[in-house]
Structures are given as structure tokens and as C-alpha cells.
């Protein structure tokens, strides 16, 4: 199917970016592939640096200090109640002696506030991107290596995790991203490796606690080789032993360095291991690095992540030729993620696939705001919309992350209509619907869609229909 230049530009924006902003289609119409690649070549592409955002270590310590203070306040309150228990009510003397502690200032707790600040920065980066290809890649890889804010201790650092492990490597090498992700405190806490202890290690011999296979299994199953591929249960156990000692410094251990990654040799299983056919002598942390490096180079990993990338951007069942080309490029470039992204957008299959994929909720929400050129004044309703549509930010229900296929998201279609209606009511008066239509869907819209929007009884209704049109839902 040959597309005219404007239709191709619109497709580029919807499929590989966060959807058109006013003027974007015309801007890309000459060379959409070139524009997509140029966005990746821009200095700082994919990064999100703001002096207001905390590093993972500082965020963790800020949250831990807050929790310490909360606990201390609760203890003091208990003590005060017990001290006052013997005195009759209204005994001013007793009240004066042990006044109630100062209440915590109103507003979200510190970990939640850090999480909200990070989510806001992420949403604004997506709203402000010219095309949003680099941001979409960040979202993709962040979901591939997902953590969840709902696991204790992760909430204040999940945003920093994305910036430190994912964004820094999103146009770099897969192997570097893999190492950065698996050694990040957020991942080590989320998949329990921080507590995993080699049975024959110094700590293992002293304590009853031992190995936890969770992270090792998910690295093999989800992050690298892929489920039912080339590894066995023995590989999982051996790999789990390899990465014992990859942990996070606790508050009691060292309040000044709490929340930072550390390799703790006292927890590490002191033994050579065999993982997926390769022998690794025990060299402390180097042993784990070596396994990750080998996994990053493995052909099964290449095929797994390339299939997923094509599935996310192009089609639930991507063309085999596209997956082949991506896989070959991955192996030829030692997992150069920028080269993969370029290969994706220069492959004919990536443009020929019909627009059948349902946009993920976040993509669709961001795309709706971009279409009308509005930046939401508050982050709350945007977060709420993500929650309602089943894609709460940095809170997937399982380590597999949010699904890349369309089908699971169909369930939320009625909720999308409600959100489309709300947004249209808030901004419909302010926008020229005909222009918004031409600037976002014009070159892609069917005659039916065009007519339905033109015949709407009000601007608000027209806008709601535009947000819900098949051409705006799918890409």
C-alpha cells in the first residue's frame, strides 16, 4: 500500500511517536523516516535531566528518613498516650508535660510526592517531544525491564530507575542497559535479589535464609532469552547463585549510603557456576557481569527482544522478515539499540502493516492532549486516567510488564470514551475542531470518520468522536 506523503507523516507520528501536534504532519511530510532518525540523533535524546529530580540513592534516603521520622512520631505518640493514661481527662498539667507531637504537614507522603514528581516529568517529556520516538523507545524498554512502585521501597525510586538505567542506555547497547537495570536498587528490591543469599556464603552459613531465584528467573525468561527457550531450571538456580550479593545498602547498615547498590561478598555464593552451557569461575561480582554479557549476546535474546520491539511498534504478529532483519542487526552490532530503532523505521514492513494496533492507554492519553495542543495544568487527572484504563504509571501487576498486544486493552474502550468525553468538555470550546482533525487525522481518516466528526452537534462531541475514532485509537 503506497501512502501519500502526508498520510505517511501522520502514520509516522501515530505509530512511532506520541501522535501529531498541530503542524507536525506538514513538518514531517517530506521525509518522515529522516525525521524519526534525526530525533534519535539529537543530543541528549531519550534523556530527562532536571535539577528538581532526585537520584535514586538520594530519593531512597529521603524516603527512608521520612519513614524513620514517622515511626519515631508514632512511638512518641504511643508513649504519650501511655503516660497520660493514668491522668483524668482535662488534667492540664499532664497535657502540658507531654504535648502531642507536631502533625505531619498535609499533602502526599514523601515517597508518593517523589513518585508524582517523576511521573509528571515523564508525562511532560512525552507531551513536549516533537515526534516522541525516543520517548516511545524509553517507554518500551522501561516496560521491558519493568519494576513496580507498589513493591515496598520501589515507589520513591522507580522514576530515578527509568532515568538512570533505561534512559541513559536507550540509544546505547542492550548489554549496558541490561547490566544497569539488573544492578539497580529498584530491580534488586522489586525482584527480591537484595535479600538473596548464597547458601555457602558467610551470611548463608550464619543465617537460615538463603537463595531467592526470582530475579535470575525473570532475567532469563523476560529480559533476555525468553520463556521456553534455551535455559533449564538448573540454569535458573545457578544464575541465582551467581548474582547473590547484588544487593542494596540498608539504612541501619550505613545511613549515609543507604539505598545504593553494593556487591556484598559476604552474601555471595563462593563457587563456579554453569549457566546456559558456559562455565563461569567465581570472581565475585565479575561472575554476574560475565553472565549478563553473554546473555546480551545470545541469539535467543536477540530474537526475543526484536520480536517484542516489532510487536510493540508494528503489529501483534509482526512480519517475519522484519523480525529477521532486526535480529540480524542486533547480532551484527552487538545489540546497538539506536541501530535497531533505525532499522525498524527504515524497514518497509514497518510502514506496510495496516494500522491495527490499539494504542496503549498512556500513548492515547498523551496523544489526545498533543492533538489539541493542551498541557494539562495538573498531573492528578492524567494519572487517574492511566489508572482507570489499566496502565497505572510504573505499576504493572507483574514483572512481565503491560502487554504489547492489542486485545487486553480492548476492555477499557468504554472507559476511554468517558475520558475522551471529559477531556473534550474541558477543552472543546477552545479549539478549532476542524483544524485539530486535519492536523491529527486528516490524511488517515476514513470518509465515515470525517463525516461523523463534521456532523457532530457540538465541538465537544466532535472532539470526543475524534479521540475515539478508529484512526485515533489504532496505529
Amino acid at each position, binding site marked *: 500500500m503506497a501512502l501519500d506523503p502526508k498520510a505517511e507523516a501522520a502514520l509516522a507520528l501515530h505509530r512511532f511517536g506520541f501522535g501529531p501536534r498541530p503542524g507536525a504532519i506538514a513538518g514531517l511530510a517530506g521525509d518522515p523516516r529522516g525525521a524519526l532518525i534525526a530525533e534519535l540523533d539529537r543530543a541528549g535524546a531519550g534523556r530527562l535531566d532536571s535539577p528538581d529530580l532526585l537520584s535514586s540513592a538520594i530519593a531512597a534516603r529521603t524516603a527512608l528518613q521520612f519513614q524513620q521520622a514517622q515511626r519515631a512520631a508514632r512511638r512518641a505518640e504511643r508513649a504519650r498516650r501511655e503516660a497520660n493514661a493514668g491522668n483524668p481527662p482535662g488534667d492540664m498539667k499532664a497535657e502540658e508535660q507531654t504535648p502531642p507531637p507536631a502533625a505531619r504537614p498535609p499533602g502526599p507522603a514523601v515517597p508518593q510526592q517523589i513518585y508524582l514528581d517523576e511521573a509528571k516529568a515523564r508525562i511532560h517529556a512525552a507531551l513536549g517531544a516533537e515526534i516522541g520516538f525516543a520517548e516511545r523507545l524509553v517507554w518500551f524498554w522501561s516496560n521491558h525491564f519493568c519494576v513496580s512502585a507498589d513493591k515496598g521501597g520501589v515507589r520513591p525510586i522507580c522514576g530515578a530507575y527509568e532515568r538512570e538505567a533505561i534512559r541513559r542506555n536507550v540509544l546505547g547497547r542492550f548489554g549496558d542497559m541490561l547490566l544497569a537495570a539488573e544492578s539497580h536498587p529498584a530491580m534488586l528490591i522489586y525482584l527480591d535479589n537484595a535479600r538473596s543469599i548464597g547458601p555457602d556464603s558467610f551470611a548463608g552459613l550464619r543465617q537460615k535464609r538463603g537463595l531467592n531465584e526470582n530475579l535470575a528467573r525473570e532475567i532469563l525468561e523476560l529480559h533476555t532469552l525468553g520463556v521456553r527457550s534455551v535455559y533449564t531450571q538448573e540454569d535458573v538456580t545457578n544464575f541465582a547463585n551467581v548474582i547473590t550479593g547484588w544487593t542494596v545498602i540498608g539504612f541501619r547498615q550505613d545511613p549515609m549510603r543507604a539505598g545504593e547498590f553494593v556487591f556484598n561478598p559476604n552474601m555471595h555464593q563462593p563457587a563456579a557456576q554453569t549457566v546456559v552451557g558456559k562455565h563461569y569461575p567465581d570472581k565475585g561480582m565479575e561472575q554476574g557481569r560475565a553472565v549478563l554479557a553473554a546473555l546480551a549476546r545470545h541469539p535467543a535474546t536477540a530474537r526475543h527482544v526484536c520480536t517484542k520491539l516489532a510487536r510493540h511498534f508494528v503489529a501483534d504478529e509482526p512480519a517475519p522478515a522484519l523480525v529477521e532483519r532486526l535480529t540480524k542487526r542486533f547480532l551484527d552490532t552487538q545489540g546497538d539499540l539506536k541501530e535497531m530503532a533505525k532499522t525498524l523505521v527504515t524497514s518497509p514492513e514497518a510502514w506496510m502493516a495496516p494500522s491495527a494496533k490499539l494504542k496503549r492507554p498512556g500513548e492515547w492519553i498523551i496523544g489526545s492532549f498533543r492533538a489539541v495542543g493542551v498541557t494539562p495544568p495538573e498531573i492528578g487527572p492524567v494519572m487517574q486516567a492511566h489508572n482507570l484504563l489499566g496502565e497505572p504509571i510504573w505499576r504493572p501487576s507483574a514483572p512481565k510488564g503491560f502487554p504489547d498486544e492489542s486485545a487486553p486493552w480492548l476492555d477499557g474502550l468504554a472507559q476511554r470514551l468517558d475520558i475522551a*468525553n471529559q477531556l473534550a468538555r474541558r*477543552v472543546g470550546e477552545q479549539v478549532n475542531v476542524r483544524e485539530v482533525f486535519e492536523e491529527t487525522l486528516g490524511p488517515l481518516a476514513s470518509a465515515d470518520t470525517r463525516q461523523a466528526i463534521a456532523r457532530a452537534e457540538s465541538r465537544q*462531541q466532535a472532539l470526543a468522536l475524534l479521540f475515539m475514532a478508529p484512526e485515533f485509537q489504532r496505529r
Partner: protein
Amino acid sequence: MIMSLHAPSRRELLLASGTLFAWAYLPKIARAEGRDPRFLVIVLRGALDGLAAVAPVSDPDWIALRGDKAITLEGKTPALPLDSFFALNAAMPNLSRMYKAGAATIVHATATPYRERSHFDGQDVLESGLGRPGAIDTGWLNRALAALQPDGRARGGREAFAVGPIAPLVVRGPAPVLSWTPRRLPATSEDTLSRLLDLYRHTDPVLSRALEERIGLVTIARAGGMDEQQPRAPGANQVRAYFADSAGTAAKFLARSDGPRVGALAFDGWDTHADEGVIAGRLANLLGALDGALAAIETSMQEAWRETVVAVVTEFGRTARINGTDGTDHGTATVTFLVGGALNGGRVVADWPGLKPNRLHEGRDLKPTTDLRAVLKGVLRDHLRVDESTLASKVFPDSAAVKPMPGLLRQA
């Protein structure tokens, strides 16, 4: 719904949807006369079927035109008589009561100068006050206010109340606007839902099925394997509550001694192309909700009701005849309601064009015989004391030929 009669709190302010003007611009001349007039404009988006709201029951061609969709004085749901010629849809008992009390004037066969049939363009003309659609960002109500001398009570900094992104075009412009955004917006209308389903059915069966399943459409199995899917009963109560809440809150504000004096609201849902439900159904529900909104205004205005005019306007009317799907398509002339204790009411004002085929506009629509601008000019001149030359140049530009309709207001 229980309406409490106190000055609206900030929370209530956030509850409703609409726009009022900030204090700085008050009708000074009217106040000098010892009056304190209030004016509220309600825009019905989607084009109200004027013949279904106020029917010419004594027109000999009426029944032939609408058949069993014609409202009449007989039958199970008899219309409410207004005079010897017109009757009001039975869904509007409060308006009937106000009319009998002299607090409502109905002007029929009205239209803006717009003669095409696009909603957006029609709404632009209705709200901008200009003769034709185009790039406009101010509305006639705002320009009317801006033309009035600021009252002595004007205070610096009140303009800060001009917040919120949803002011209807009719109130946008140079005069500072106090608008508020509802905390709870109305749910998606049945009409929007059915339009979307219609689009999906024609273009995307997967989305169509997903949406139908999720909204719990009731499948009515018919004999012979014919399945017909009917949308769930419309959220008529929701619409009713929303209309009454919005209008009542606006009125509480206008009623305050230190509140704004002019405001505007927009209600949508009037584009009744199919299954119009004139007697029982969609339009009857909407008219009932509008009736409730008018009653809420009356109640909330309290003493100020006798100094109040509410104008209910819409972008154009609908076809005189019923179409092939038991609805009506975009038309031309329609009805305009004026409601409020300041009116010299209890009358239907109409230069009735008749309903014979050769009397219809382009052979299909009620012919416009009264320019809506004449009605609005009459209110603005006699109620708010906007002078006639301003009305003809600034408020409704190039409209000197359209004279203000006299005698709409009660003599003070």
C-alpha cells in the same frame, strides 16, 4: 434534588459548569434607575426542534406535517395550551406555570442570520453575534457587557476571577470572565455513544463489538433470528440533575448582592436525527431537564427573580417534517424562550409563517420570520440598558436594520 437556599460556597462553585462575568462590568444605568437586572443566557447546542417544543396545534397543516409525532392537546400526553394557537410540550410544566404567571415569553419562528446547516458554523454565528461564520474569538454577550460603564463597585484585581478554559464563545471577549469548571462533568451522552457505535459499526467491527459488550447493551432477541440491539435506557435522571445543578448554581451566584449580573451556560444533546422521542423519549427528557433547570433558576434567584431574564437560544431549528428514522434533520427557524420575573410575559410572539409546503423555507424548514438578534437586542436594551447604536455596531455588528423587539420587559 434538594436545593439549599444559601449563597454558593466555593465547592458549589466548582460543581456546576458555566460562566458568569466578574464584578467590574455592571449595568450602571439600570442601577441608577433603582433596578439591579440579572441576565442569563442558556445555549442549547445541537439545534432544538422548535416545533416539538412549542407546537402550532391549531395550524390546519400541523397534523399532516408530523403525523403521530405531532404533539396535540388530545391523547395520552396532552400538550399544555399557551394560547388559542400554540401549545407547549407536556414535558415542561414549570415553564407553563411561569408563562401563566406572566414570567415567560415565547418567540416562535426565530433564527439567526445563518442560513446553512453546519452546527459549528451555526453556533459561531449564534454566539459571536456576527452575520456569518468565521474566525472570531469574542461573543455578543461579552461585548455587550464591555460596552457598559463599569459600576462604582468595580474593584481592581477582580479580574483574577477570570479562570478556567471552558467559557462558551458567547461570553468570551474583553470583559473579564468568571468561569468555573465542574468537578463532576456529565457522563458521555447517549447521543455521543450512539454516534460512536454507528461509526464503529461502519468502520471497525472489533471496536464496535468491544464497546457494545462493555457498555452492557441489551440484546433483544427477535423472532426469526433477527437481533436488534437497543441502547440501555438513557441516563435521563443524570442529565436532569446536571442541568438543574448547573443552572441553580449560576442563579445562586447572580442572586448574591455582590455577585455577577450576567452569565451563560451551554447544554448539549439537542441534535435529534433519529428516534427523537418528542412525547416520551430523548427530546421529552431533554425538555424536561431544561424545564427543571428553569425551575432551579427561579428557586435559587429568590427575590432577584423579578429582576431576572433568562434567554434560551439554539443555533438553528430542524426540518419541519419527520425524516426516515423518526427524527428531524438540520433546519432553519426554531423557538426562543425568554423566562424570568422581569418579563412582560404570558404571550407567544410570532409572525407565523404557516406550514404549507410552499410556506416552508426551501420546501423543508420552518421559515424564519423573526431575527433572533431583534429579540436579544430588545432584552439588552430594555433590561441592561445597552444603547441602541452600540447594539447595532459592537454587539451585533452591521445589524442597524434589525430593530430591537419592543415591550419585552415589564414596566418598572
